[in-house]
């Protein structure tokens, strides 16, 4: 912790209190501590100061103060991210957007909504579903996560197989640049002229500025939704069924898979009453116009049975559908019932490599003496292995982390990705050089320099090594994220 940095922060705090008023600026250590982590609690840093923004002007004011004094800032929505993307900076400003939660314009005629960044994902669907619309990206945390966070992380969810990710649903944003300027990009009309800045911004994890308003697509509710649960003896059988469904030309709204350990955990937690003796279950959802869904549904049932499913349950109504999904959506938390601690991994493989990789993951866990539960989006090969451990046992964390890291190696070996939807954040920045070359990362960082030449927007995230931006040689760019968490206060 350098004296200069803390002196600069003190100056910024003074300016923020003057400009925003003391009630918007949290300096009290106990209150700041509330914000020390996001959904990835393994990383904790108490922010230097917290600003509770009421609107885009507050955000711009805060960012301008940071820019004047080269002080880092981090944006935070609901704080549900799983990669430490909203991990605060101990010498920086945490800009909290959760109080900006108005749906400015729910324009169903144009199939668009203009929302504040703090609007909760499900809140938008709740507001528009009476008119027959919804917001398609549906991360498991959708009842609490913010749309601003979805934009930052390019969130997906179970249904993105058919409907795409957040990036496919954003047509405009208001951005506060790292210089504190307010810029309007895109709008309700598609294809704004010029470079596709939205494509770069969505999923940039807060490193290119702060989005203070998002214009998003509203999707028409389908005429019909049908959900089934198919139980299989083995993961191989369930994987074969998935391949057969895709090969038949069906794109379900979702295909989710759980293995025996994940099923056991879900049963213990929410009593979802999945078929006994299942080594794997598939949750398949089809939606669309009724005549099409009826035909595809028969195909899917037939393909599941042909692949060895010994029980197929069909949701008769919304309640039964909710029960089928309850087991799947509660799976992460449910693992807490069968293990004191666990790591949620997020990696992607080409879907066809699924059976092989699952066997390799099992072998990896066995050789390390670590249990791994698997819950994942089978349709697009997005794995969420849950690596179980007991933190009170010496060496257990290290073994679990080794297995979690090994799983990412497997993903990369098969041509996949180190993250499908949780983001890189603070957690996986160190893994980026395993997926990208130095030139790849340099080029991405060149784009970052275009937006953030001072390197003050969420530094230490996404990229393992900061890059100097041309004209300002020798400027301090912040430490490596791990070093950073090392010097920070850890509880």
């Amino acid at each position: 912790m350098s004296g200069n940095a803390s002196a600069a922060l003190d100056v910024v705090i003074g300016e923020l209190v003057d400009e925003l008023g003391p009630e918007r600026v949290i300096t009290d250590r106990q209150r700041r501590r509330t914000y020390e982590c996001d959904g990835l609690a393994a990383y904790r840093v108490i922010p230097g100061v917290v600003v509770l923004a009421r609107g885009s002007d507050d955000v711009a004011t805060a960012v301008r103060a940071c820019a004047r004094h080269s002080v880092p800032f981090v944006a935070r929505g609901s704080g549900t991210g799983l990669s430490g993307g909203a991990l605060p900076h101990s010498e920086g400003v945490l800009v909290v957007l959760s109080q900006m939660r108005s749906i400015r314009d729910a324009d169903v005629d144009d199939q668009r909504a203009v929302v504040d960044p703090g609007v909760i994902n499900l809140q938008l669907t709740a507001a528009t579903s009476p008119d027959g619309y919804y917001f398609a990206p549906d991360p498991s945390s959708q009842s609490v996560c913010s749309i601003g966070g979805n934009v930052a992380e390019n969130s997906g969810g179970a249904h993105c197989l058919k409907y795409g990710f957040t990036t496919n649903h954003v047509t405009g944003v208001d951005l506060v640049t790292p210089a504190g300027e307010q810029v309007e990009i895109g709008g309700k009309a598609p294809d704004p002229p010029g470079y596709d800045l939205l494509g770069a911004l969505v999923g940039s994890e807060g490193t290119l500025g702060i989005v203070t308003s998002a214009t998003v697509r509203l999707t028409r509710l389908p005429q019909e939704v049908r959900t089934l649960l198919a139980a299989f003896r083995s993961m191989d059988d369930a994987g074969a069924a998935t391949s057969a469904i895709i090969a038949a030309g069906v794109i379900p709204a979702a295909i989710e898979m759980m293995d025996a350990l994940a099923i056991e955990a879900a049963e213990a937690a929410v009593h979802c009453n999945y078929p006994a003796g299942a080594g794997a279950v598939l949750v398949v959802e089809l939606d669309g116009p009724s005549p099409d869904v009826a035909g595809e549904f028969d195909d899917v049932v037939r393909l599941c049975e042909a692949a060895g499913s010994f029980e197929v349950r069909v949701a008769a109504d919304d309640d039964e559908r909710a029960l089928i999904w309850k087991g799947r959506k509660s799976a992460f938390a449910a693992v807490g019932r069968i293990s004191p601690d666990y790591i949620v991994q997020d990696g992607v493989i080409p879907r066809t490599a699924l059976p092989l990789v699952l066997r390799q993951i099992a072998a990896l866990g066995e050789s390390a003496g670590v249990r791994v539960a698997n819950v994942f989006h089978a349709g697009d090969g997005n794995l969420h292995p849950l690596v179980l451990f007991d933190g009170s046992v010496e060496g257990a964390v290290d073994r679990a982390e080794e297995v979690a890291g090994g799983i990412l190696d497997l993903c990369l070996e098969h041509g996949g990705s180190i993250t499908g939807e949780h983001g890189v954040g603070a957690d996986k920045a160190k893994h980026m050089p395993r997926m990208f070359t130095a030139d790849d990362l340099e080029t991405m960082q060149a784009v970052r320099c275009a937006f953030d030449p001072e390197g003050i927007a969420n530094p230490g995230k996404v990229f393992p090594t900061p890059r100097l931006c041309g004209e300002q040689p020798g400027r301090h760019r912040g430490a490596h994220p791990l070093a950073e968490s090392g010097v920070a206060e850890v509880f």
Partner: protein
Amino acid sequence: MADLQRLEDALKQAGGQVTVAGPADTVDGVPAAAVARPTSADGVAAVLREATAQGLVTVARGAATALDWGAPPERVDLILDTTGLHRLVEHGAGDLVVVAEAGLPVAELSETVRAAAQELVVDLPPERLAAGSTVGGALSTGASGPRRLQRGALRDLVLGATVVLADGTTASSGGKVVKNVAGYDLAKLLTGAYGTLGVVVRAAFRLHPARPDRAYAVATGRLADVAARARDVVASQLAPAAVEIDRPAGSDVAEVAVLIEGTGSAVGQRAAAVAELLGGRVQAEAPRWWAALPGAGVSTGSTGGGGTCAKATATLTGVAGLLAAARDAEQRYGVGVALRGSAAGVLHALVTGTPEATAAAVGHLRGAATHPRDGTVTVLRASREVRAELDAWGPVGGLDLMRAVKRQLDPGRNLAPGRFVGGI
């Protein structure tokens, strides 16, 4: 002046050739001095490194089906012909993914993946497809067609790209899996950038299973009625794959055609339901104008002799205003304005008339949206005389950030300077 020998030397190891430019080697009327045709990504890197070191201006060229889109470059020393990079790198049929080099014609890619009953849903205009439009060209022009309504534009289908920057740096982003949030999505930034940030050498795309059956529901009516009915179909639960509107120049009526895709009898049922909404009929074949740019066949595709081609966007409800503005502009300025495209709000206009009248008509079309966030008109192809009369791009949100991106990736303005928004 280009030192061809050194360019040739640079290419020697990677393979490819450098030739003196011929009379046809122009970019929207701007003549080039030389043409380099590398056969690999390494070759592209070698050529660009040397060309930029010589201070040359390079413009990438695929099949040249849209080389006259965007403003003419300030100057062209070297044309980088990408058609030597024509390999289909990988078709992961089970994963619904294809990886291709930039110079591969989209038609060839489509033929390969069709064997597995799959398709890249880009829906290029048939005239571009037939002329050999390449993967890199489709990307760089930000192509989209009728089925963008449900499946998005090419920017929504691209999963990753490898680009060579002006200094020869080769950089990849994204990957070849459908789901991936590691690092910046530079493939989208390169899509529609007209080669001003780098030369795309390879890209990966998401494929869709080809639906076995299709039907069209069509209707004709007054402009406002057609716009309203098209919107009703878009807002229905019938999941149309495309809703297209065609309004020929000088016409008070327009045609709407809706594509229904699926399997078996379900298609017929839905098409009948759409026809009822439209007050129209069901037919097996697409209307002859389907996916084509307005005026296709009229234009020579060179320097805008066939009129001025523009891209017009609107909100769903704003499409009606755009159609009305086209008719209005014709009556006010004595021009022809053919308008065709998706009811999702991405259309193309072909404006014919004097340069002054064309400029006035483009301005009038821009006025159809109350704010640029609700709709824009950008000129894709126009003669020098027309360009001199108008602002081809209109207002561009975030232009300063775009300039900054350009400065970072191509600081010497060695790639197609002047071709893009704000003179980038």
